[in-house]
């Protein structure tokens, strides 16, 4: 395998140049009480000056560990247990701390994953940038400030001079990522390691930032090692691709080739699971003979499509289950002293949701889409407007009626780590809503828990486990099971699959479609990811700055987007222009 990797990468070496980075048979392990657990197993890759190489893989594949091993910043008990990392011919694995310190920042820049947690909250931006400049250039005094402003302006912060004294929390996520890119490139390193630099950002911001990064690295001739879980993104941004799975490289070569013609079964699955513009809504057809349900993705069968279309027509003729009329939510934000600013989070939004359908609300962060979800769930009060559920105004619901409403409209939130109580085992978590609504006896509740676990395809033994012992996908299944416990009619899914890997995301979307068909559920799907929308939604509302700018059926929005904003969103989907080999 190693041999193959070197060969494929060597196919296109820029004429007459030595490799900048050569990783040979890298082995990285984490020390535990039961010995060393390998995380990276025999990884080899070669990167030439000026090239961009992307490592793609799901979480736990060892892609980040490989990157961290290169700059010797392995977390916790991680250590390199074998192989070489040759940077301009020098083996980084045997450098001491002082020599490595000289390499970091100056020779190899690093742009981390999460802009929210990678800037120190207690120091201002200017300090954190100038610190990197001082450490790597030897500049002191006035020139440092000038260079700091220069670096930030290059990274795309035009008003850098005025913002040096501001703190990270006063910057948006995209701005912070620009600061981190500025820091990473401040010493003009020969290699930049970008570890999922935009996975925490909106698609349009992601595109701006990556375009900018591409321009800068091209201008400086910087090589980029790009780590991502997003195959489309990798293919769009890098000439060379390395696909990792369980610590090993399973496939490598030029991006276009891999996408068009994936060889390894894992890569084929990744390519197939990557949501893109080409995909169609997942269709589920109930099998009359038994409880099993077949899933047809990417086109599906004709019968399923026809079935679906009939269902939708039937639904269309009926009344709206949820009807939202001109809802507005205003927040008052306290400024200094006694002054207030008013923020219109949701501005005159109207739409209807038919029973048994999925309506997606799409928008970037700050567009008000999550506020709409909170308003419908009655977690926040309306400023004006009307929300009807089965023709009844829900605003005035109190006591028992409100409880009944909550029973029928259940939420599933984005963060499967944050929304499950770590001290509660899975069984108790799922049974809690039953207990809160005083449903059934203890024995009945236990039976229901097992039934729910079965519905979300988890083994019965899961009920005794704790959230920390489960993967992100399993946790999200539990969150769904918990939401289904009270047999609701509506699920409000607020970014329910955004935190998951592509393959897991696909599984959860399939599960949701299956459950919708089996239980006749109505979904309100809040997301920033248009590619996912195409897979699950019947109708789409595109939100921008608190307003709905476009609302139509999913096919309409994707095939004939009317608004400029919608077109921008569609264009920003990574890999949108690639033909995936399926």
């Amino acid at each position: 395998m190693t041999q193959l990797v070197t060969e494929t990468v060597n196919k296109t070496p820029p004429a007459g140049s030595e490799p900048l980075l050569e990783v040979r048979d890298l082995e990285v392990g984490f020390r535990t009480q039961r010995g060393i657990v390998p995380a990276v197993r025999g990884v080899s890759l070669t990167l030439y000056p000026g090239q961009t190489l992307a490592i793609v893989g799901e979480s736990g594949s060892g892609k980040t560990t490989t990157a961290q091993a290169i700059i010797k910043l392995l977390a916790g008990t991680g250590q390199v247990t074998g192989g070489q990392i040759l940077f301009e011919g020098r083996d980084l694995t045997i450098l001491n701390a002082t020599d490595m310190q000289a390499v970091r920042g100056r020779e190899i820049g690093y742009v981390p994953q999460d802009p929210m947690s990678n800037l120190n909250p207690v120091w201002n931006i200017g300090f954190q940038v100038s610190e990197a400049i001082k450490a790597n250039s030897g500049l002191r005094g006035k020139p440092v400030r000038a260079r700091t402003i220069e670096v930030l302006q290059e990274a795309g912060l035009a008003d850098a001079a005025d913002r040096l004294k501001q703190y990270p929390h006063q910057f948006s996520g995209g701005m912070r990522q620009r600061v981190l890119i500025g820091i990473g490139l401040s010493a003009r390193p020969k290699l930049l390691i970008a570890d999922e630099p935009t996975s925490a950002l909106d698609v349009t911001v992601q595109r701006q930032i990556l375009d900018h990064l591409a321009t800068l690295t091209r201008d400086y001739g910087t090589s980029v090692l790009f780590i991502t879980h997003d195959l489309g993104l990798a293919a769009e941004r890098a000439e060379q691709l390395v696909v990792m799975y369980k610590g090993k490289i399973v496939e490598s070569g030029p991006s276009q080739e891999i996408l068009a013609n994936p060889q390894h079964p894992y890569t084929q699955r990744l390519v197939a699971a990557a949501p893109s513009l080409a995909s169609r809504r997942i269709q589920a057809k109930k099998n009359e003979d038994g409880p099993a349900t077949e899933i047809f993705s990417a086109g599906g069968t004709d019968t399923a499509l026809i079935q679906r279309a009939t269902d939708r027509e039937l639904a269309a003729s009926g009344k709206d289950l949820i009807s939202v009329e001109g809802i507005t939510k205003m927040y008052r934000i306290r400024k200094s002293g006694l002054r207030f600013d008013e923020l219109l989070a949701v501005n005159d939004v109207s739409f209807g949701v038919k029973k048994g359908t999925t309506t997606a609300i799409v928008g970037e962060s700050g567009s008000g889409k999550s506020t709409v979800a909170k308003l419908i769930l009655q977690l926040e009060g309306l400023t004006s407007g009307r929300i009807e559920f089965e023709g009844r105004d829900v605003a005035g619901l109190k006591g028992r009626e409100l409880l009944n409403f909550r029973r029928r409209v259940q939420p599933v939130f984005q963060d499967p780590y944050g929304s499950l109580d770590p001290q509660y085992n899975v069984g108790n978590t799922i049974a809690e809503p039953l207990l809160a609504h005083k449903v059934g006896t203890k024995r009945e509740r236990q039976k229901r828990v097992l039934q729910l676990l079965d519905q979300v395809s988890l083994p019965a033994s899961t009920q005794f486990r704790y959230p920390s012992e489960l993967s992100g996908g399993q946790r999200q299944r539990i969150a769904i099971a918990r939401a289904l416990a009270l047999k609701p009619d509506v699920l409000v899914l607020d970014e329910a699959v955004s935190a998951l890997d592509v393959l897991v995301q696909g599984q959860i979307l399939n599960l949701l479609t299956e459950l919708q068909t089996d239980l006749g559920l109505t979904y309100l799907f809040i997301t920033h990811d248009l590619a996912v929308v195409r897979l699950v939604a019947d109708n789409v509302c595109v939100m921008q700055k608190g307003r709905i700018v476009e609302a139509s059926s999913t096919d309409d929005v994707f095939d004939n987007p009317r608004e400029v904003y919608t077109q921008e969103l569609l264009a920003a989907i990574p890999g949108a222009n690639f033909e995936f080999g399926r």
Partner: protein
Amino acid sequence: MLWYTGKRLLQMIPVFFGATFLIYFMVFSLPGDPIAALYGERPPSDAVIAQIRAEYNLDKPFLVQYLLYIGNFFQGDLGTTYSGRSVSDVMASAFPITARLAMLALAFEAFFGILVGLIAGLRKGKLFDASALVVSLLLISVPTFVIGFVLQFVFGVQLGWARTTVSGAAPIDELILPALVLASVSFAYIVRLTRASVSDNLNADFVRTATAKGLSRPRVVTVHVLRNSLVPVITFLGVDIGSLMVGAIVTEGIFNINGVGGTVFKAIRLGEGPTVVSFIAVMVVIFVLANLLVDLLYAALDPRIRYAK
């Protein structure tokens, strides 16, 4: 920020009245007659008792006593003790001694606590860390008077490095040993607090990023780990200023220091209303000011915290 500080200072007014009223009421309700206790076995004549009672306003109803006391308090007259000394006099001699002792103890616990906690946090799981944990556990679980007597015996009696008791004026050098005893428990807490905070922050993403910038290890530790770790420690220290300032009855007792703790203890035993209430009133003010100081320091250390209201 000014707005916030002003609001906090205004809040002291109800706290002051509430605290003095409660304390006055409690002292008033103490069982036993303070005058009788003062004279012990040979009670004076009824006429003398009545005169003393009138002099100290003990013959009037509770509310009148309290209002008279507050009225005098704001004219700078804190009343007199039963031995005839003015309360302000007693305060002027007791508070500076306790303040010296408290500041010394605070300096010890802050400096050594943060230092030991930092090293332990950086070397988590190593020998230094394990020993620091054991020692701090020992200091927390052994009562202060045991630590006090042991140190007094070892350094004062056996080695002769320090005086076993502190003279009336209580100069700084004589207060070093008592301050160490007083600081011991808080030192242990600060070690643990700093250690936990440092080892948490050490794993923070921004620390890894700081290293990736090419910063040296000492710089990463002092600039990016230590400052972030100090926020909870400062909170603890601020609350501790309060409790150290209001006196350390046990430590002052062991080393025979005429500080606030001993004086208040004596006054409570004698039922000296004005003395107890005056001391407590000052303590309450110190406590509130110390807490305000903590909140302001908090904002200085963590820019995300801004007091707008």
